[in-house]
């Protein structure tokens, strides 16, 4: 449990510019360091947390905490991620204008910000490596990006669209498998199957 709290205290302190910048750090801790998650589980975590409403950082903290230690774990992780930023903002509000005008601190924050962009780039690259297995996933990622950034489609709507597409292709795929009489296959790679026609739904 303490591991969980310490991990998320660190994340709360070092997350600049939103929860997405947490991804590479989480990845490092959860997959490489603590070995709590496999790559697949990690990608699922990101996908689920982005699909649900709410502040993404909280979503991820709750998810990881819950998966690790149940409801108590999710509470601990959530509080841990809230605490550092809350404390810092209160200090700023309390009239720490000194801090605000300190050139060293401002420089450090600028450095943090630039590095955070770097972190998000690594998030895109490493998630890409885990997710891009076929043409469909590449097309889907690019079109989701275009829809949100250029066409200003609501993020929630984009998520729902892709969810429905995924379920539909899984349903179609499932029928096909049932019809073909293949037993004991799972539909995990449904979209992949649709993309390359004959590669059955087995893992």
């Amino acid at each position: 449990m303490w591991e969980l709290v310490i991990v998320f205290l660190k994340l709360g302190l070092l997350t600049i510019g939103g929860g997405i910048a947490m991804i590479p750090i989480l990845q490092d801790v959860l997959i490489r360091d603590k070995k709590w998650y496999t790559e697949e589980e990690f990608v699922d975590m990101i996908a689920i947390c982005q699909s649900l409403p709410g502040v993404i950082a909280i979503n991820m903290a709750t998810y990881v905490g819950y998966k690790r230690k149940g409801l108590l774990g999710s509470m601990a992780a959530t509080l841990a991620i809230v605490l550092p930023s809350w404390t810092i903002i209160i200090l700023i509000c309390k009239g720490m204008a000194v801090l605000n005008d300190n050139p060293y601190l401002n420089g450090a924050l600028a450095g943090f910000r630039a590095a955070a962009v770097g972190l998000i780039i690594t998030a895109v690259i490493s998630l890409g490596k885990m997710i891009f297995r076929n043409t469909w996933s590449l097309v889907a990622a690019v079109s989701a990006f275009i829809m949100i950034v250029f066409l200003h489609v609501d993020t929630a709507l984009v998520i729902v669209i892709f969810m429905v597409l995924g379920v539909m292709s899984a349903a179609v795929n499932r029928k096909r498998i049932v019809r073909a009489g293949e037993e004991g296959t799972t539909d995990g790679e449904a979209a992949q199957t649709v993309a390359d026609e004959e590669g059955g739904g087995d893992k």
Partner: protein
Amino acid sequence: MTLLNLFLVFLKIGVLGYGGGLAIIALVYDSIQQFGTISESEFANWVAITQVTPGPVGLNIATFTGYGADGVIGSIVATLGVALPAFVIVSLVCKVLFKYMDSWGVQGALTGVRPATIGLVGTALVTLVKPAIFSESHLGAAFVEALATTQFDWVALGIMAASVYLIMKKKMNPIIVLLIMGAVGAVLQA
């Protein structure tokens, strides 16, 4: 009464705020008008501060607004309000989801959403590149406009590229990389 109101307002933001931090800014601005004293430029300042201070932007904005409305207690109430829906929803979903993780429906939905995830992360990238790499970019300025009119911050770009290199190629711990880059920023600025 203010406290209850504050809690309810941020509860609403927590439920509706979709896609994380920066997406909820407009929603916050509209919702906090009832607390009266906040002008648009003041709010823009807050947003700027919450973006450069550590911690998720959504939480930072809640803390800031809560403090402005009702001191430390207000900040606690607002922060809890914005965090609570996410916490409850994710806990409930986890409880159900982990049971049906292997069903075709859940797997299908996940298969559909997984690639979109990258699109969303890319969106966060676009939002964040602006304040980090282009100096003097204004809140809400169009990305292309920022490209065309503002000064390019080469140092920030270098820090960014170095971070990617150290994490991806040198397999360095991202937390260490952040700390190094913070130190580099402090030295260069002074």
